[in-house]
């Protein structure tokens, strides 16, 4: 029988042809694969969150194979000796088995937890990037709102996951959550009893959190992620202003092959960092916390970092008990229900607030440098300072203990800091932005500082500036600011990047200096 020769080179094209004749995907795929993405490091921050989410789905699936969210009481009989024979829930037992008796279980658990922390961290960093560059402006307000919703969904998802193992720490967190719900006037007790199926802790809460954690919230998150990324395709990615870049075009690389390959590489890097952290750093050692018992509340009981700001706001809140029309509004209500309420609604409305404030209702596809909108940059710094003070206050007992500060002093520092630091941060960030703006304008008007000091005949010293274009008779250049980097160093002139390529070490030889025919003119101040 004659063997048919397979032409390997024609194979991909041929199979694609076969697919396309059955499923007409070529036309829409061509559009997607040819999509152009602008390239800048700060556009990759959201990808960190996306890739962490994928790793969360993968590791979470593995964990779900071994975990049982049951509150049935058992006696531990696994390989961790210090808990041998201790009465605990089946959920805690299976979480311990995952850590000690399932092959690869511990690293999967740790990767899952680190990926969750990274997911939330990347969301916050990405959100700051979007905010400070004005990427939320028309037409992208909806994506901004979706992004914010994903933060709060991730927050809830993370808290649900933190509560599942039923160790002493997660039980304490759940107890606090039930207290927060109870603090809501009028409906609080109804909400709590219906969620817990009666009094805390009841027997149903873990099953409910489980279905929330492994099915409902991930599904909603996945849908929102798809819409979030889909809208970037539909509305196109924003880009920095620069040569050839307008509000109507996108300058960058095509989705396929270059951008897709780079993204694939970046996914591997995110995966690598999470795997490294999962393997090297211990996270959430549930075996040290022990099983949850109502009487057990350890010192240093904190939520994960993205919930810690609520812990901090609770610690800073004065004990103001308000009685109103026969109802009691406990002090817990303000820092844990009202504050997050404001913090979720206000940023969602911000795109419209800013449009009104700046009277700017136009569509924007070009980004703004943080220095060019000092008010907004100041607001970002203000929000960051506010959040940071609350987050540090959430761990103020650890800070107080390890740095030998009085805990009372930490609380008062937090209270005063919460009111004083955000306005200061606003002021300093705004001045910083204005100063950077001014320096840009100075370079455009006078040129780059050369570092050459010249002594004039009358004895004055002046620094020689290299004008960017031929100056007028006063030595000034009248260049418009286009909203992008202004060269500030002599070796940046005429090139946007460093002259020699290579990140860690040069990957090319520098060209030998050109032998010019005419003697070069001396660099002068531009004055005649």
């Amino acid at each position, binding site marked *: 029988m004659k063997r048919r020769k397979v032409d390997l080179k024609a194979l991909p094209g041929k199979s694609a042809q076969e697919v396309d004749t059955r499923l007409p995907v070529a036309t829409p795929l061509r559009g997607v694969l040819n999509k152009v993405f602008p390239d*800048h*490091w*700060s556009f*990759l*921050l959201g990808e*960190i969150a996306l890739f962490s989410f994928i790793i969360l789905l993968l590791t979470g699936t593995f964990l779900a194979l071994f975990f049982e969210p049951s509150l049935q009481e058992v006696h531990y009989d696994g390989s961790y*000796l*210090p*808990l*041998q*024979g*201790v009465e605990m829930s089946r959920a805690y037992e299976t979480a311990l088995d995952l*850590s*000690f008796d399932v092959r690869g279980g*511990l690293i999967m658990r*740790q990767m899952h937890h*680190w990926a969750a*922390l*990274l997911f939330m*961290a990347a969301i916050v960093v990405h959100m700051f990037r979007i905010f400070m560059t004005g990427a939320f402006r028309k037409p992208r307000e909806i994506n901004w709102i979706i992004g914010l919703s994903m933060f709060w969904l991730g927050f809830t998802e993370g808290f649900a996951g933190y509560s599942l193992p039923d160790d*002493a*720490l997660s039980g304490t967190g759940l107890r606090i959550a039930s207290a927060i719900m109870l603090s809501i006037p009028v409906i609080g007790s109804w909400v709590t009893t219906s969620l817990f199926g009666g009094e805390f802790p009841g027997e149903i809460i873990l099953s409910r959190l489980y279905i929330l954690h492994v099915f409902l919230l991930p599904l909603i998150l996945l849908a929102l992620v798809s819409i979030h990324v889909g809208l970037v395709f539909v509305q196109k990615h924003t880009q920095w202003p620069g040569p050839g870049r307008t509000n109507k075009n996108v300058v960058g690389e095509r989705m396929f092959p*270059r951008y897709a390959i*780079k993204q694939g590489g*970046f996914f591997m*890097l*995110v995966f690598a960092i*999470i795997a490294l*952290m999962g393997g*090297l*750093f*211990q*996270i959430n*050692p549930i075996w*040290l*916390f*022990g099983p949850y*018992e109502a009487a*057990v*509340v*350890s*010192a*240093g009981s*904190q939520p*994960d*970092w993205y919930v*810690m700001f609520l812990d901090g706001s609770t610690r800073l809140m004065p004990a103001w008990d308000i009685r109103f029309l026969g109802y009691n509004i406990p002090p817990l209500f303000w820092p844990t229900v009202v504050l997050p309420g404001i913090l979720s609604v206000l940023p969602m409305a911000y795109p419209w607030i800013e449009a009104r404030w700046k009277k700017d209702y136009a569509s924007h596809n070009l980004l703004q440098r943080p220095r060019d909108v000092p008010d907004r940059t100041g607001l970002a710094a203000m929000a960051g300072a506010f959040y940071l003070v609350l987050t540090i206050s959430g*761990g*103020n*007992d*650890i800070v*107080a*203990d390890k740095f*030998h*500060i*009085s*805990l*009372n002093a930490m609380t008062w520092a937090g209270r005063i800091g919460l009111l004083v630091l955000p306005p200061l941060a606003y002021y300093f960030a705004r001045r910083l932005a204005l100063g950077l703006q001014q320096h840009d304008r100075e370079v455009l008007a006078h040129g780059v500082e050369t570092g050459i000091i010249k002594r004039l005949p009358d004895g004055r010293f002046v620094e020689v500036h290299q004008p960017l274009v031929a100056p007028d008779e006063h030595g000034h250049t009248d260049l418009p600011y286009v909203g992008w980097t202004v060269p500030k160093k002599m070796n940046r002139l005429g090139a946007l*990047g460093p002259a020699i390529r290579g*990140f860690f070490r040069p990957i090319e030889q520098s060209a030998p200096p050109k032998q010019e025919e005419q003697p070069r003119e001396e660099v002068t101040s531009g004055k005649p």
Partner: protein
Amino acid sequence: MTPDTPRLAAGAPKQRSRVRRRLNSALRMFAALVFAGGIYAIVAPGGAQGAAPLTPAAEAGKALYDVSCISCHGANAQGVPGRGPSLIGVGSAAVEFQVETGRMPAARQEAQAERKDPMFTNDQARQLGAFIQELGGGPQLPEGEDFASKGNIARGGQLYRINCSSCHAFSGGGGALSSGKYAPSLDLATDRQIYAAMLTGPQNMPVFGDNELDPQDKFDIIAYVQSLQTDSDPGGWGLGRFGPVTEGLAIFLVGVVALVFAALWIAGKS
């Protein structure tokens, strides 16, 4: 002599008898004093010489006490207001704990004396303890150095989580209390020190007497605390076992920083 006695009534013979009377009363007073003093010298313990003799260890402890502790706790361990409390009745357990961990002699007056390198050897600390014990009695430690091996770790863990973790934290790493006070880390504590701390409640710690935690309970807790120190973190570097605070710090300092550099690197490749 009453004030309304007429002065005219006072004559010379009366004056003589007054002198004699005074002399008599002085003699009677002297005799009474000699009698009372004699009785006291016979019946009452007259100073240190008259007390039950101290054991050699306590004698050595007293010598140490007289040069290192006396300025704050007083010559008879009765305490000095504003400086140091009375040591009567604290027992040798408290003395051994405070001295062996270096908390006493205290470096300065502050919210809480800190653990530091001890000034005395363990033998000297026990001599001091013997002196205080013989002076005023109080709780004493059981014999032996190794209590951990007598305890059940799993039971100790349960007792630890209920009784100790609210201040010393799940990891034994310690935690903050109000106004600069704190529950110290248990990393360096020996079996005897943990036992003594539970028995005597040093500084801000409550006393866990034998009614609350019987000796076997204490052995169990000690076994668990010591197992925390020897238990190497199976998940990698424990980040100080501070819980989510250092984990949050790590994700930003390691995870986010590394990935921002990765983003800079990838985006620079074009």
